[in-house]
């Protein structure tokens, strides 16, 4: 008895010093841990659902939502279904994300280049902007922007009027173009002029590259680009578009387009925040370009702007694109903070849906799936760009 115990202890101590045994033990332990924790979490969920008599079907999505959402793009009436409401939220989120990506890229590149500028004022302002914005929480910035800046604008009664533009804490109202009978013909004309302008630019550019003569491709291309639409506007019967001016009508401004303070707050907040990070990425990307390359370009006769545009940035992009993907994903996910400033985005509307329907598990699952899909689409797009930019090795 004693001897067998001793024997097993010995064999155990032999195993306990065996690295293969320890590695296997660690791996199995990890798998067991994941399974146990996962089972416990799921068990909790199903127990809770059981005791409350809830099921996990999605039938509730066809029920009447019972709440309206105020938005310019998509109107939701209280008789629409929860699913309609969900799509309104999705559309609002997409609107913020797409515009946010474009604007933050533009602002980020501009700031990143400014960070390396020889102009002291421009460089200092950019540095101060990046350091302040990068090191404070986004939600605080959003609250400041919304409650501290946009809502402090004059009320509708004391509105600021700049010609046809009206500014107040109810939003920025500006004229909207209303298409008339001849608008389609005119749009077609604009399309033709764009194609024509590109063709002229290409041929004249080609000739300049081949002969070295100054052919002024930009100037020549501008002639049809501006001339044709202008001619069309004057010649076509009636104006293709008329402007609908915003006007005060009772309590609200009717007509025209509106940029609501909530939309402005979430969009500006996301753009300002994300651009600060992109600026740093752009700066590091530019610095990664070998100095010799820049010098060679300048020595070759290219101007500073041309060097930046044609030599430095294309090379720097290879360094810039992968970390920028992260910032784009952050922007998409951070858009869910919109609820803090009253913008009816996907998260805000989903919260209302699961509070009203009581189906929290399904709605949160849908929301997670939607954000996941959004992130994967952005990643896929960036991976595509990254692959295109890669130096083709032979």
């Amino acid at each position, binding site marked *: 008895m004693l001897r067998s115990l001793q024997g097993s202890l010995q064999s155990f101590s032999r*195993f306990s010093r*065996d690295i*293969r*045994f320890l590695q*296997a*033990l660690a791996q*199995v*332990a990890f798998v*067991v841990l994941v*399974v*146990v924790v996962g089972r*416990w979490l799921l068990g909790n969920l199903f*127990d809770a659902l059981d005791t409350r008599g809830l099921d996990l079907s999605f039938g509730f999505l066809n029920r009447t939502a*019972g*709440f*309206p*959402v*105020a938005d310019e793009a998509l109107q939701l009436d*209280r008789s629409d279904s929860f699913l309609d409401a969900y799509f309104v939220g999705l559309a609002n989120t997409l609107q913020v994300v797409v515009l946010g990506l474009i604007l933050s890229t533009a602002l980020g590149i501009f700031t990143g280049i400014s960070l390396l500028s020889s102009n002291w004022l421009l460089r200092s302002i950019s540095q101060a902007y990046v350091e302040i914005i990068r090191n404070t929480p986004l939600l605080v910035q959003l609250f400041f922007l919304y*409650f501290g800046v946009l*809502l*402090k604008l004059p*009320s*509708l009664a004391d509105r600021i009027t700049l010609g046809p533009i009206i500014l107040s*804490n*109810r939003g920025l109202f500006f004229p909207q173009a209303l298409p008339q009978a001849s608008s389609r013909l005119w749009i077609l004309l604009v399309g033709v002029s764009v194609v024509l302008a590109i063709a002229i630019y290409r041929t004249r550019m080609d000739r300049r590259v081949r002969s070295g003569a100054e052919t002024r491709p930009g100037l020549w291309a501008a002639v049809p680009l501006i001339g044709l639409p202008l001619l069309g506007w004057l010649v076509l019967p009636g104006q293709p578009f008329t402007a609908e001016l915003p006007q005060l*009508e*009772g*309590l*609200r401004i009717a007509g025209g387009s509106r940029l609501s*303070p*909530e939309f402005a707050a979430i969009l500006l907040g996301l753009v300002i925040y994300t651009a600060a990070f992109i600026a740093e990425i752009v700066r590091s990307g530019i610095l990664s370009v070998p100095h010799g390359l820049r010098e060679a370009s300048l020595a070759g006769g290219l101007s500073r702007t041309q060097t930046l545009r044609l030599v430095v940035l294309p090379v720097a992009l290879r360094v810039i694109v992968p970390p920028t993907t992260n910032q784009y994903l952050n922007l998409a996910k951070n858009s869910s903070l919109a*609820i*803090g400033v*009253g913008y*009816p985005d996907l998260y*805000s509307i989903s*919260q*209302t849906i*699961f*509070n*009203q329907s009581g189906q929290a598990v399904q709605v949160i699952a849908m929301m997670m799936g939607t954000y996941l899909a959004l992130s994967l689409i952005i990643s896929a797009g960036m991976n595509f760009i990254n692959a295109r930019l890669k130096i083709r090795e032979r």
Partner: protein
Amino acid sequence: MHPRRSVLPATGLALGLLLAIALSACQPAEPEIREVRVVETQEVQVVQTQQVQVPVELQMESARLQAVKDSGAVRCGVNSSVPGFGFLNEQGEFVGFDSDFCRALAVAIFNDANAAEFRPLTAAERFTALQTNEIDVLIRNTTWTLSRDVELGTDFGPTTFYDGQGMMVRADSGFSTLEDMDGATVCVLAGTTTELNLADAFSSRGVTYEPLVFATGDETRVAYDEGRCDGLTSDKSQLAGLRTATTNPADHIILPVTMSKEPLGPVWAQGDQQWGDVVRWVVNAIIIAEEKGITSSSVDDIVASDPQDPEIRRLLGVEGEFGALLGLAPDFVVNVIREVGNYGEIYERHLGPAGTDIPREGSLNALWTQGGLIYAPPWR
């Protein structure tokens, strides 16, 4: 060859060991779940025994009333954070509309307003406190609904305050009804029934509006205060508090319109109807006193002047044995009115202009003789 041969038993041993650990780790979880279930069935049993006891309790003297009398204090579940209704002030006293009804109960039983023992409760705790006999009566702005009345094993007394969703607007906006608010922007809290009531109220009137939804009450209030919205909607009792938090409360008014029904009143555990009668008729006495114009300052004079109105005579115990029927002193109403006041006085004290300022005139909380719903059955 050699190392490969020894990996397999090593993995096998590790797996076996860990399976054993995992299995043993799983085991303590099971009895825990069982324990919880036992507690649940016990709770159900408590409710059942109470229901079984109902016929036994149909005697003249209430067991609960006797227990309260023996303990020397009536225990009330109250709110401690809603100004005007139940609020713990700086002196550590519970003040408010609801708290005063508890004091009235203490005076009715002991002729001592200090015999009221307050138990501050959260919304989630309140019904459990009743079911487990932690408190004798719950007076904590609790809305009377079917499911609460039936499912929770509680009974609701007469409604002391008709709350409902209201609308706050700027005084200079010229709004006096919801119909005036066509095209208005309304600030509302996300995910509440308020949001649905708002949609129902406006669409049933054929009025368009634009909702602006926020996650917290503070954000909603600030956005309204800054003029982003024309109106702010919430329960009226809470609107009054939100109004006092605006930069200039005098600039804002609460419209007399009501978008939902939220009748608030005292609640007690099912199973002791005599005790329920005591609570019900103390509240009724306070209402009848206002109807008859009996105030805390005039009640003693009225008794001394030998009133002619038969209902006043019965109410104040000059005539009849109504106090004894309830197991209380014959003149308990006199004490209650002297110490706490009639309905109007309680309302004025906490919800009037000096308090949170919820307009009473023309509202549901006006006396029935003035077009409101505050009404008590006859005292006979």
